[in-house]
């Protein structure tokens, strides 16, 4: 009798402990989730609060449309950085995206066995190289290539450093990353899609183009967006290779600046001057807001694609 009771009370205290742990764990998880939200809010609030001094003194519109950045004489136009950022992003994505999609199709649908293993592991290794290494190699290889060969070949003048150079190197950096993610979306598709299409006599290419690229479309779209985000926010490579010119570039071969390079080039010495600090933080806030708007728009597009191309 005694033993059964002990067992029972043991059993119920064990249950109590399990239930307590259950409650505690849910608190922890909720806490962790909200911590992330709070951190995000804190960052945005800090940026907003710190940008107030400059915005209250100069019009936002004027700063965004003026190309004169000269903190010493209280000029804070950052149009060249906006133009430079757009240039770099568009050029690198234009170079990287088609290559990434083609390579992903090759790896997911055509490559087999050892070849597939080798090619895809090289791409993964490439995606894992720190970008500062790409910056260094860019300085040694891409800068002279652009300055001595590419620019003269298209009849432009270039010192080697500049927007095209940065775009080339950034394309090389984000492409492996986009390939990996796109391959994943293609490989996640059920074989039934392939069988259904091939089963009515479609060729492999027709199957890929009409069926697989659509079905994997939302995933590939996300991969491209993540690549886009990386180029947009890239700091170290542009800082090393863009040439740091605070004027609107006349051609893509010119030197220039991007929003992140404007911040890193100036923050060291100028953060001590309150108004400049505020201006740089405003630049940071602009970067954040653009990325945000972009992500939001992308989410809407992705949702549409998912409905349209569901399988």
């Amino acid at each position, binding site marked *: 009798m005694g033993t059964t009771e002990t067992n029972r009370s043991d059993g119920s205290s064990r249950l109590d402990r399990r239930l307590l742990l259950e409650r505690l764990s849910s608190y922890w998880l909720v806490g962790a989730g909200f911590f992330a939200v709070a951190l995000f809010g804190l960052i945005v609030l800090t940026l907003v609060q710190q940008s107030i001094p400059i915005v209250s003194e100069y019009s936002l519109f004027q700063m965004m449309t003026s190309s004169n950045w000269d903190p010493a004489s209280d000029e804070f136009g950052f149009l060249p950085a906006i133009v430079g950022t757009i240039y770099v992003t568009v050029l690198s994505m234009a170079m990287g995206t088609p290559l990434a999609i083609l390579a992903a199709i090759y790896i997911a649908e055509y490559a087999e066995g050892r070849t597939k293993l080798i090619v895809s592991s090289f791409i993964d290794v490439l995606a894992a190289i720190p970008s500062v290494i790409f910056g260094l190699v860019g300085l040694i290889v891409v800068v002279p290539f652009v300055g001595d060969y590419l620019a003269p070949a298209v009849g432009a003048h270039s010192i080697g450093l500049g927007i095209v150079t940065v775009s080339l190197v950034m394309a090389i950096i984000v492409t492996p990353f986009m390939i990996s993610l796109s391959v994943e979306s293609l490989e996640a598709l059920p074989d039934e899609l392939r069988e259904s299409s091939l089963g009515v*006599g*479609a060729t492999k290419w027709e199957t890929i183009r009409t*069926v697989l690229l659509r079905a994997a479309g939302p995933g590939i779209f996300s991969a491209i967006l993540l690549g886009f985000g990386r180029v947009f926010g890239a700091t170290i490579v542009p800082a090393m290779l863009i040439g740091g010119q605070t004027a609107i570039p006349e051609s893509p071969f010119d030197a220039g600046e991007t929003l992140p390079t404007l911040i890193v080039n100036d923050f060291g010495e100028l953060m001590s001057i309150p108004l400049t600090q505020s201006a740089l933080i405003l630049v940071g806030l602009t970067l954040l807001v653009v990325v945000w708007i972009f992500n939001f728009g992308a989410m809407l597009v992705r949702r549409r694609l998912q409905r349209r191309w569901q399988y």
Partner: protein
Amino acid sequence: MSNETAIRTEDLEVTYTGNREVTALDGVSTEFAENKLTAIIGPSGCGKSTMLKSLNRLHEIQPNAEISGEVYLGDEGIYDTDEPLPEIRRRVGYVPQTPTALPLSIYNNVAYGAKIHGNYSNSELDDLVESYLRKVNLWDEVKDRLDDPGAELSTGQIQRLCLARSLAVEPEVLLCDEVTSALDPISAEQVEETLEDLKEEYTIIMVTHSMDQAKRLADDVVFLYLGELVETNDTRSFFENPQNERTQEFVKGHTAVDYDDEPDEESVTDEQPVATR
């Protein structure tokens, strides 16, 4: 098997060479009659799907499948041939087990193959889509929403859409891989009714592991066991008077209802084609 033969296999052998070598089909020679529905039955993993896919070379999308023997479509082999693979697969269509809508509209799901193979005008395509959707008893359910994504239909409707898509390229033979096993009983019944209508006009080869379904639908039965052909006969003889000892056991093990009492309409929904998964 009195009728003309639409497709036949000769000493068909398929081996999967992966980490472990597996012989999925071991020298199967059999024939499938024209304009009849033949059911391939057998326990799971006995090579039914492999057999089906080898009839239009669809197993070749698996990287490690090796095949020997030959499949004759009419008089011509489909392995030792100059005929391009897509054309072989157009002539021998395939409907997979999982209802699969292509990421296209309902309309384009049906028109998909036809657009690839033929030069149709828009109005011809409209007619074609309508006629094949009617053929699979889907037209009335979808005629007002042809531009919606195919995947928004119910699974049962999608399976009939798949049939329409396959038929729209006018195949000589249609391969169906357990086409009702992923469906609820009512959708399964609708698909079965569709197959019932279609078998008058088409040569259909269907894999199933529901014996009752085979009894209800099939004209002929092919029984596979561990990659070997055990017995093939017309459905009635196969179930009433199995010749081979293994068939006798298999039929006995699976037969809950006596053959003669069975084919009344309602009982179709009561039994569950799904249950045997």
